[in-house]
Every structure is written in structure tokens, then in C-alpha cells.
């Protein structure tokens, strides 16, 4: 019983990380149909921002998280303005190649500055060790992840469903041309959304460094996971991404625990089957 609960809990906390890293990509893909594989590089960048801020400048861990969000958000909006926006109308292949090129470059750049080894992450005292909660002994850091993730998911859904800006974003996802014709500045909306999505990826990276390990190959290791979340959830849907990320997290942890021999490709099989049955993802709608 307790092993089932702990697998569920570990899976959910892992899923939360995947959700934060991929939700931005899901929304921007739904909006502009832009396949940005460099999203995972944003996550890696966020991780390094966190590590450098903590080790070089002694910034407390909690403050490094908004720092990672803001810095990576700025980087992503710069890239969007300078590079990505010229490729919105192009085909999938062009976008895939462009952004995978950026991933390669980011790996080399990070190796150049911080070396190819795993980064040591020293968590503050209150986030290490275990905590008894309702009869279960749980890792404190994972509790922290679940709480922050829940908060973020709530904020995102609330922001998208209840605010003015959220309504504009939804309008752009549903039909960009019509939104444009109604007088919305779709260019600006997209740039801001892109920055928030990039910032979230950075935040996710910063939060995951402790759990998933941070080294220059981080983007290639998690690229597939992020793509799975986006495609299974359905592009442009936050709820879908959340469900897909949590399911993926649980499936991955459970698969590796119960079937260590096939654990890895259990999730790939699920992905292939889901994509064959529902090419637009679980919650995806035809544009």
C-alpha cells in the first residue's frame, strides 16, 4: 500500500516538473503552430541560472526561482523577436531543424562555460530530508514541488480562463486571423505568451535541477518527454498538458518500479498508441 502511494506521489511530483517545462510550448504551438524544440534549452538555462545564482552570488534558493523565470523569459523574448518570428509561416520541418540547431548550440555553449559534468545543487535545510504527512513519510522537496506545481497550474488556468489577457490568448489559439481582424495585436500577445512560456520552462528547469540532475545533455534527455506531454495533451490546452504530464510522470515512475526490464519504453508505446488513436492529443481540437 505505502509503495503504491509513494509511487503515485513521486510520479505526480515528477509530472509537475514536466508540466511546468512543457506548458509554454503547448500554448505557443497551439497559437502559432510553431514547433519550438529549444524549449528544453530554456529549461536547462533556468537550471544554470539557479545554480550560478546560488553558488556564485549566494542568492537563497527561493529567490533564484523568480530570477530564473525572469531571465529565461527575457532570453526567450529576445530570441522570439530576433529569430523565431520570421519562421512562423514555415513548415514543421524548417522549425524542427532551426530549433534543434539552437539546442545543439545551447549544449555547446553551456559546456563551454560550466563544463560537461553534473552540477551539484545544495538545497536549503528545510527542503531536504523527509516529512511525515498524514501517515506517509514523504520527501520534503517533492512536497514543495507538488505545492508549487498546483499553485502554478491554478494560476495558469485562472489567468487563461478569467482574465482579459487570457481571453485574448484563447482567441489567438482558436483563430489567429479572426482575432487579428477583431483588432487584437496578435503579434504582441504572442510575444508575451512566448516569454511567459519560456520563463515557465526556465522555472521548471530550475526546480528540476535537484531531482533530475543538471548537465549539458539535459535538453536531449528531456526533449522527448516534453514532446510527449505536448502531443498527448493536445496543443494549446493547459488542462491537457497537465493531465498528460501527470500521467506521464506516474507511468514512468511506476513502469520503472514494477517492470524495470521494459520500464523505459512503456511510455513510448503509450505515446504511439495515443497518437495513432487521437492524432490531435487527448484534449486537442481541430483548429
Amino acid at each position, binding site marked *: 500500500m505505502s509503495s503504491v502511494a509513494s509511487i503515485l506521489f513521486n510520479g505526480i511530483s515528477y509530472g509537475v516538473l514536466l508540466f511546468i517545462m512543457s506548458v509554454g510550448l503547448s500554448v505557443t*504551438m497551439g497559437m502559432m503552430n510553431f*514547433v519550438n524544440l529549444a524549449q528544453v534549452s530554456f529549461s536547462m538555462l533556468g537550471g544554470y541560472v539557479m545554480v550560478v545564482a546560488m553558488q556564485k552570488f549566494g542568492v537563497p534558493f527561493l529567490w533564484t526561482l523568480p530570477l530564473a523565470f525572469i531571465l529565461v523569459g527575457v532570453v526567450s523574448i529576445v530570441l522570439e523577436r530576433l*529569430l523565431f518570428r*520570421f*519562421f512562423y509561416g*514555415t513548415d*514543421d*520541418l*524548417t522549425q*524542427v*531543424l*532551426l530549433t*534543434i*540547431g*539552437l*539546442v*545543439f*548550440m*545551447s*549544449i*555547446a*555553449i553551456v*559546456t*563551454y562555460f560550466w563544463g*560537461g559534468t553534473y552540477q551539484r545543487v545544495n538545497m536549503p535545510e528545510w527542503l531536504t530530508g523527509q516529512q511525515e504527512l498524514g501517515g506517509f513519510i514523504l520527501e520534503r522537496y517533492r512536497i514543495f514541488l507538488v505545492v508549487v506545481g498546483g499553485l502554478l497550474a491554478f494560476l495558469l488556468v485562472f489567468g487563461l480562463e478569467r482574465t482579459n489577457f487570457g481571453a485574448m490568448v484563447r482567441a489567438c489559439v482558436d483563430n489567429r486571423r479572426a482575432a487579428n481582424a477583431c483588432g487584437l495585436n496578435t503579434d504582441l500577445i504572442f510575444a508575451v505568451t512566448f516569454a511567459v512560456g519560456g520563463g515557465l520552462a526556465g522555472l521548471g528547469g530550475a526546480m528540476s535541477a535537484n531531482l533530475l540532475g543538471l548537465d549539458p545533455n539535459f535538453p536531449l534527455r528531456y526533449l*522527448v518527454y516534453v*514532446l*510527449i506531454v*505536448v*502531443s498527448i495533451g493536445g*496543443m494549446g490546452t493547459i488542462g491537457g498538458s497537465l493531465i498528460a504530464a501527470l500521467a506521464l510522470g506516474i507511468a514512468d515512475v511506476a513502469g520503472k518500479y514494477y517492470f524495470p*526490464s*521494459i520500464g*523505459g*519504453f512503456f511510455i*513510448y*508505446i503509450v*505515446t*504511439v498508441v495515443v*497518437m*495513432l488513436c487521437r*492524432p*490531435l492529443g487527448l484534449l486537442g481540437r481541430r483548429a
Partner: protein
Amino acid sequence: MNTPTAYFEGLARWKPLEIVFWLVLVGLFFVPGVNLPLLSQIIIWGLFAMSLDLLLGYRGILTMGHAAFFGIGAYTAGYLGKFGWTEPISALFLAAAIAAAVGLLAGRLVRSLGGIALLMVTLGLNLILYDFVLRSTELTGGDDGLQGVVIGQVLGMFKFDLYGKTAYLYSLAVAFLMFLIARALVKSSFGLALLGARENIPRMIMLGAPVGKDVSAAFAIAAAMAGVAGALLTQTIQSVSPDALSFQRSADVLVILILGGTARLYGGFVGAFVFLFLRDWLAQLNPVYWYFWIGLLLVVVVAFFRKGIVPSLGVLFTRMQKKRGTDERTPNRAAL
């Protein structure tokens, strides 16, 4: 004189540059001090990229899992060599057949998909296979790959030597044969049907073309050729590692093809030349950061030479011809 027969004959006519291309590849063999092992790799990668071209260039199918077929061919040749079937040419046929069978299935599976779903399914299938090979250490040697692969003499006469002379000529001959098949295919009515479906699927359906079946067939053929390329790699380096079917390889072959240019058949070979020479040079220059330049190359190519090398040269070539005032009919699909 615009009968269908005349049209296809016109398409199939060899252009002088094509003959020069293959003569240069043969001629390279005789250049003293040339790096034959690297050239063999280039030929093999070129053949692999050409097989992808059949799907991506001529049919517009963006597959992220083409290395799976390459790997199937490579492991088939590896197993045969390991368990005593050392004759290389029959091994190529077997590798092609097995890869084609898998390709037919994969094509049947994905032929109604497009966009991100197609990308994810092909990528997923590739990863499943890779994971399987990596995990089944008893069957495949896992990370270390297959050890003790023995390859006999080609045609019972030519031994694979240390300098890679046999390997180069053997790879070149096989690649040329594959090229002839691919060339005949894309310049036939089947090739035209693929091109048509690339441009406008509903219209091809209206014309009565078996669009779905054509995709399965194209997958099978492309898979067979990728399998041959994989088997060639195994035979020329006498070992197999799981790298043969990694995602990295699927991505690399895509880069090579885009670099060279799609829907030209020659694009894969030219791209392989540029990519592998560059990679070799950059890795010697700096073994750690060379991937930065590959990434930059990709970004620059996509941003400025989206058509790739061969089509860009083709445009240049026809422009030069026009300047000289030759009133040769502008070829439909560029010079090469």
C-alpha cells in the same frame, strides 16, 4: 511530340553532370593519400540520406525515426556475420528484405497521420526499438553492440583490407546500384504520383491514385535502402553498436538531407560530403565544442539556404546557361 513515353524518356535521360558526379566518386579512389574510410562513410551516409529523400523529398513525409531501418539493416548484417553467414552480398539482400518488411508495417501504421502526430509516432517507434536493443544485453550486447562480426570476401575475391580500399569500392558499387533503382523509381509514374500527393493529396485521390498504398510502398522501399546502408556500415567496419539506430542518427540524416537539398537524389550524397568533412574537421579542431558549429550551420542553412546545396547550385547553373544564351529548354526540376 508530347506523348507520355516521350515525357518519361526525357525525365530519365542522363545529364552530363550526373555522369561527372559518379566518375568523380570513382576517381577519388585513385587520389593518393585520400581518406578512404571517411569516404566510405560518406557514401553510406549519402545512401541513407537518399533513402530518406524518397519519403521526405518526394512525398513530404517528415519522419524522425528513419535510423530504425538503418539499425535493422546493421543488426541483420551483424547477426549474420556473427553466426557464420559471412557472405556479404546475400547479407545485403536479407537486410533489405527485413527492413522492407518492417518499413511496410510502419508505413501502414503512419500513412494517415500528419504534422506533430506523425513526428511523434515515428520518433516513438524509433525510441522503442533503440530502448529494446539497449536493454536486451544478452541478445544484442546492449551498449557494447555486437562483437566478433566476421565478414567474408566480396564475390569470394576481395578481402576487406585495413586501408578500406575494398570497403570504398564495395560501398560505392552498392550505393550506385541503389541509386539506379531510386532514380528509375522517382522518374516513373510511381514517382510522379508521390510528388503529386506531396503537393495536393485530395487532388490525387480525386484522380484515383492509391495515395495510402503509395505511402506504404514508399516506406518499404526507403526502409530497404536504409537497411542496405546500415548493413554496409556493419560490413565495412565489422561491428555494430546501438548508435546505428539512435535518435541522434535520425536527426543527423535529416540534417544531411536538408543540407544537400531534398527531392534531388543527389542531395543526400552532397550533404553527406559537406556534413561529414565538416564534422571530421571541426572535431579535430575542437573535440568538445564542435556541436556548436553544427548547430549554427543548421540555423544558417534553414534561415538562408532553405533549399539546400544542390538546388541552389542548380539555380545558379541554369542562370549561367541563360546568360550564355543557350536556348536549351529550362529543365523541369533543375540541372541535377
